[in-house]
């Protein structure tokens, strides 16, 4: 390959990269108000993720990414929650106040969002409960085209370090709930269903969800 052809190839590669970069945009998420009522207890640097100052780093997602989960059907391992309704999870209200979250029973529980069609998942944002500093145990987020999650399962987040939920051992870090929620990179996982599991939290044995947003694009 002579020098001119090599230069041409480099130029083409650079142009392709630039075009791809232009297609990526920061994911815009509307955040609720912080909900720590009263004076918070002195909890400093409790997060296993390095404590962050300033704005959360942007998560870059393909242009055209939309919230696919808004208003979509949600099912759960606890089909009759004592508090709240499963519809709260995708109703767009992530304020976290009473009457905006659903409470699932103790032991590992999951919720599942049916996106209606196969989608390429760019990001998942989760608000379990953010009116108190707490950590949800064994959080696992999976995507699949199989509603039973038996085949073709892609795990995009798993911090169940001892496999107590029997979904495989995870290495992701635990995190403290906050008004910003937890923003996960969907890594382009393909599937119609998104399932989120948890196993109680540091305050009680229950599992809560204010809101879950699945961002991505439907596969034509």
């Amino acid at each position, binding site marked *: 390959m002579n020098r001119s052809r090599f230069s041409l190839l480099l130029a083409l590669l650079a142009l392709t990269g630039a075009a791809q970069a232009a297609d990526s945009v920061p994911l815009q998420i509307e955040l609720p108000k912080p909900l720590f009522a009263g004076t*918070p*207890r*002195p*909890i*400093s*640097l*409790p997060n*296993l993720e390095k404590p962050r100052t300033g704005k959360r780093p942007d998560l870059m997602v393909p242009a055209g990414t939309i919230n696919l989960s808004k208003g979509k059907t949600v099912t759960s391992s606890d089909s009759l929650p*004592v*508090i*709240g309704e499963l519809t709260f999870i995708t109703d767009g209200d992530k304020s976290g106040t*009473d*009457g905006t*979250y659903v*409470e699932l029973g*103790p032991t590992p529980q999951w919720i599942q969002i049916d996106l209606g069609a196969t989608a390429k998942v760019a990001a998942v944002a989760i608000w379990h409960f953010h009116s*108190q*500093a*707490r*950590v949800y*145990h064994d959080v696992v987020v999976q995507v699949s085209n199989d509603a039973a999650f038996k085949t073709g399962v892609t795990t995009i987040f798993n911090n169940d*370090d001892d496999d107590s939920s029997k979904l495989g051992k995870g290495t992701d*870090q*635990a995190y*403290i709930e906050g008004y910003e929620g937890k923003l996960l990179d969907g890594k382009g996982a393909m599937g119609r269903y998104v399932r989120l599991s948890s196993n*109680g*939290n*540091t*305050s*009680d*044995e*229950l599992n809560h969800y204010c809101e879950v947003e699945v961002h991505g694009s439907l596969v034509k």
Partner: protein
Amino acid sequence: MFASALRRWLPLALLTLLAFGLRTYELERRPLHADEANQAVKTGELVEHGRYAFDPRDHHGPTLYYAVLPLAWLRGETTLAALSETTLRLVPALAGTCSVLFLFFLARSLGFGPAFLAAALMAVAPASVYYSRYFIQETLLVSFTLAATLATQRWWQSGRLGWALAAGVALGLMQATKASAPVFVVCALAAALVFARRRPATPHLSRNLALIFGTALGVAALFYSSFGTHAAGLRDAVATYTFTSARAAGDSGHEKPWWYYATLFGWEKNGGLIFQQVGFCALAFTGALLAFATRQTLLRATAVYTLLVFLALSLPPYKTPWHVVHLVPGLAVLAAGTLALIPWRTLAVIATASLLFLQFNQTQLVAFLREADARNPYAYVHSSPDVLKIRALAQAALAARPAGAIRIISEEYWPIPWYLRSFPAGSVGYWSTPPADCDGALIIVSAAQASAVRARLHGDYHESFLGLRPGFLCVVFTPVPPTP
């Protein structure tokens, strides 16, 4: 004759069984509150080594600890490690069951029906059930107060020395349970004396009173002196009032508005859960008003006693929810009095059944469905269910590193010592600030100190979270096994 007695007493026997069942069902399911754990470890010292010394600064009276002894022996638990939550909580559970019976006999002058109803309302009262399953002194104090009132009532009416003696013993047990006992004695005396229509039956009043007072003093002295083995306990039994009054006056972190106890009998929606005793409270309030419209002395005295106790508990800024158990017997008698006065039988039956159902429903919520939930008004700064994982964590850590240490580094750590009670003392240590050497087989650190500890650790550690109680998080450090 037998059939008639059976018809009469069978309902009471069944009620007692219900009260006992509610108070003893799955006693181990709720994690130990910090106060319970602290007292449990102190009890373990008594069970295992026979050692007990009254601490006037941070602990209440000795009866709770000594009452565990016979149960522990019966259940074959002779060490701290063997001691179980069930054995510990059986003490208030049995006391709570006895309270129901005491209230029935105390209210007998209202008639069998109202007395039975008062006992039934107490049997299913949310606060009474909840704190009868809670290893603290309050339910014992209620039980001894009711026993003392009952014995005094019987002595007053019959003049029999046996009742005077029983009253003295019960008063002594009250004093040996909690320093606040005189508050309830004074309230009961004030209420009784205002409405006493007859003079006491005994012709030897001063001798009888001396017997009651002497017996009470003797019983209390026995317990505070650790049955004669710790004389300083007698001095401390008096000294404790210095600390108690300082606590009651404020600056304890438990200051609340004066109406706090009333709110526990009202209506509260918290996090989607509804806690209410409006019907019970409304009937009791009506009962208090009716008491003065009728000639029923017991109802009047109960109304005054309950009001005085409410004021005595509400005026000091120091308030904790377990004190409401002292209001339940009075409210139950007053509510039963109202129901008994309903002239239409069908309405009375419907109102009674509805009230019992609502109260039972609330008891189910607070004592069984959300027993350690931060929204539950009785689960006061309660330990998180996460603490139940600590024993397994420690076992796994020491199995991996038998020579390693378990380090608890936190400004607050109860109830952890209870859950680590079976591990050798040399393998578990507690620090309120990070020590120079933080490494160990398992390190549980309050979130506030996690970064300081992390900086002092050598080697790789896996980190996870553990909740000590709502809002108080700990970081758990476990060494990462070396890669083969």
